[in-house]
């Protein structure tokens, strides 16, 4: 890697994820995954490189509209568009989970119109019960066997354990970077942190650890400028572009924490393998993964983990990001807003169609919300 500041390098990787992935794969197969249910650790253990498929915010949708109706999720449509435009051709295969119905449906459409060498639909239960955890654990084994076929060799327990160990180091380092945001002013901004996480979505886990170490060192050494601003937690649908965080931070706030799938929902806690490797992955990727596509019961106490984050990071207000047609998030919103309200934390919801084209209107709301907090 080039000799420049770690965060400048992060920015470069964030902006050129595909070319970095290609360069660092060194001939190993790159397997794309959509959503975060099929554990990338299993892909790593197979000697392949997991690559998180993302969209391109605001991209002009030309091809995908031929295959997806106007009421389809704009995010999934955008990811599919990237593939139809040939921007994901470097991937050997794709793993798509049944995270939500749109993602599950795109599996078939995508496979039919744009077939990779390897394509796998990963089954994910929608409720958490002892039986669904057992079910998920078995699905993990099926997924592993499917990758073994592709790789042409078995994936050993040791290989899995080694991949998880590297991933856990990623997680520990990310946790340490999050910890730098607990004190005002945070040593790493929300926009920077999101870039760090997205850089991790395309790098081999070992290289990512080196980068995280460098970022930690650089951020810790920063001098504080002492500016006090409102502290925000961002909740909502997938955010894989820094523009939304940028709008909030430019309006005069610190994004100090999040409840997002590229964020605390997936990478803050280590995978605990004391009850077995597959059980550890099951707990991390099904039981503890707080995407509202999984039913966590009707009680508003299902949001208590979010309140814990609010308290831990000293959050003053929550800003939500909801994509058009994302029923799981939108149906959770009224309960969440009221629950946070009960605990004195105001919440603002921004609706978008994965373009953030309406920048001025969004800025206006965000600014008014921040003025309300001061």
């Amino acid at each position, binding site marked *: 890697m080039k000799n420049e500041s770690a965060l400048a390098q992060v920015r470069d990787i964030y902006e050129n994820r595909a070319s970095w992935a290609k360069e660092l794969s060194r001939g190993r197969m790159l397997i794309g995954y959509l959503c975060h249910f099929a554990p990338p650790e299993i892909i790593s253990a197979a000697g392949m490189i997991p690559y998180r498929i993302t969209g391109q915010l605001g991209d002009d949708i030309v091809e995908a509209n031929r295959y997806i109706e106007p009421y389809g999720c704009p995010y999934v449509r955008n990811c599919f568009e990237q593939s139809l435009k040939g921007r994901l051709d470097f991937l050997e295969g794709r793993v798509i989970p049944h995270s939500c119905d749109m993602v599950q449906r795109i599996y078939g459409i995508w496979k039919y119109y744009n077939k990779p060498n390897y394509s796998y639909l990963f089954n994910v239960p929608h409720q958490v019960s002892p039986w669904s955890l057992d079910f998920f654990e078995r699905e993990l084994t099926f997924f592993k066997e499917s990758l073994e076929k592709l790789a042409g060799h078995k994936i050993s327990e040791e290989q899995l354990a080694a991949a998880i160990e590297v991933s856990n180091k990623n997680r520990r380092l990310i946790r340490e970077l999050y910890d730098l945001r607990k004190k005002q002013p945070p040593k790493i901004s929300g926009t920077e942190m999101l870039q760090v996480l997205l850089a991790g979505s395309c790098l081999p886990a070992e290289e990512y650890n080196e980068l995280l170490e460098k970022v930690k060192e650089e951020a810790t050494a920063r001098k504080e400028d002492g500016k006090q601003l409102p502290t925000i937690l961002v909740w909502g649908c997938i955010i894989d572009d820094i523009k939304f965080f940028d709008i909030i931070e430019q309006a005069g706030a610190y994004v100090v924490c999040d409840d997002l799938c590229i964020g605390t929902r997936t990478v803050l806690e280590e995978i605990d393998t004391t009850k077995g490797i597959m059980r550890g992955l099951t707990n991390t990727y099904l039981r503890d993964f707080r995407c509202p596509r999984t039913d966590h019961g009707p009680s508003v106490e299902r949001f208590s983990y979010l309140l814990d984050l609010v308290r831990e990071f000293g959050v003053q207000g929550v800003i939500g990001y909801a994509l058009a047609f994302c029923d799981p998030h939108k149906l959770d919103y009224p309960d969440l807003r009221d629950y946070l309200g009960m605990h004195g934390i105001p919440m603002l919801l921004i*609706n978008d169609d994965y373009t953030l084209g309406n920048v001025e*209107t969004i800025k206006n*709301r965000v*600014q*008014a919300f921040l003025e*309300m907090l001061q």
Partner: protein
Amino acid sequence: MGYVAGLDSGSTSTKLVVMKDGKIEGFYVVPTGGNSLKSAQMVFEQWSAKTGKTEDDLKSLVATGYGRENIRLARKTVSEISCHAKGVHWLFPACRLIIDIGGQDFKVIKLDNEGRVINFAMNDKCAAGTGRYLELMANVFQMSLEKFSLAAETATGSVEITSVCTVFAETEVINHISWGTAEKEIVAGIFNAVARRVYSLAKQHLAGDKEIVFTGGVAKNKGMAGALSKIMGCEVKVSFNPQITGALGAAIYACEINGGQ
């Protein structure tokens, strides 16, 4: 003692309110058109032409509205939501709920007893129920906005406009015209449809409010004020010039920056 001012660079019009010694010294309104910077200059020129003063005579200026970031001279920018709250609280200290209907959006703003915003809700993207929607409808009837605002005064009934989409609602209106429905009843239907949309947004924030204030350019429309009063179940108050409330709020912020002068 000096002049302070608030500039509201809105989507449809640009408003300037100049204050001196805690009183409104004058206000000026020009259409925003395609250039928010130029219309801001124009509104200052109007002030200069009338009083001989220039921007240099201002102790402080606060900008609000969609074009607020472009106003070079502004000491500070404040969102129009906070500005409307400030302006209304100055005019109507007992008010706790504001309905603001502007050119491209409408808002419901809830205040505490010091005029601070405690919550707000806004329509999303679509123009239904905004000033633009009413302009389009007035156009269908080939009426000026003034004439349109009074066109439902003598209506005894009103038609139902059910579509929330501006374009589809226009089609509904044209249907009624072709069926020969009385013009005033169609216009009354249009006002009621907008009032219903605003009410559905305001409903969760209503708490037995006795004093609701209606601001923004659309508050100049008497028919709309009447339709809102009916649906809200109390008299909706309108200030002497509702269009300038945001700029007035900005001017009061400017006043505060200047140490209350």
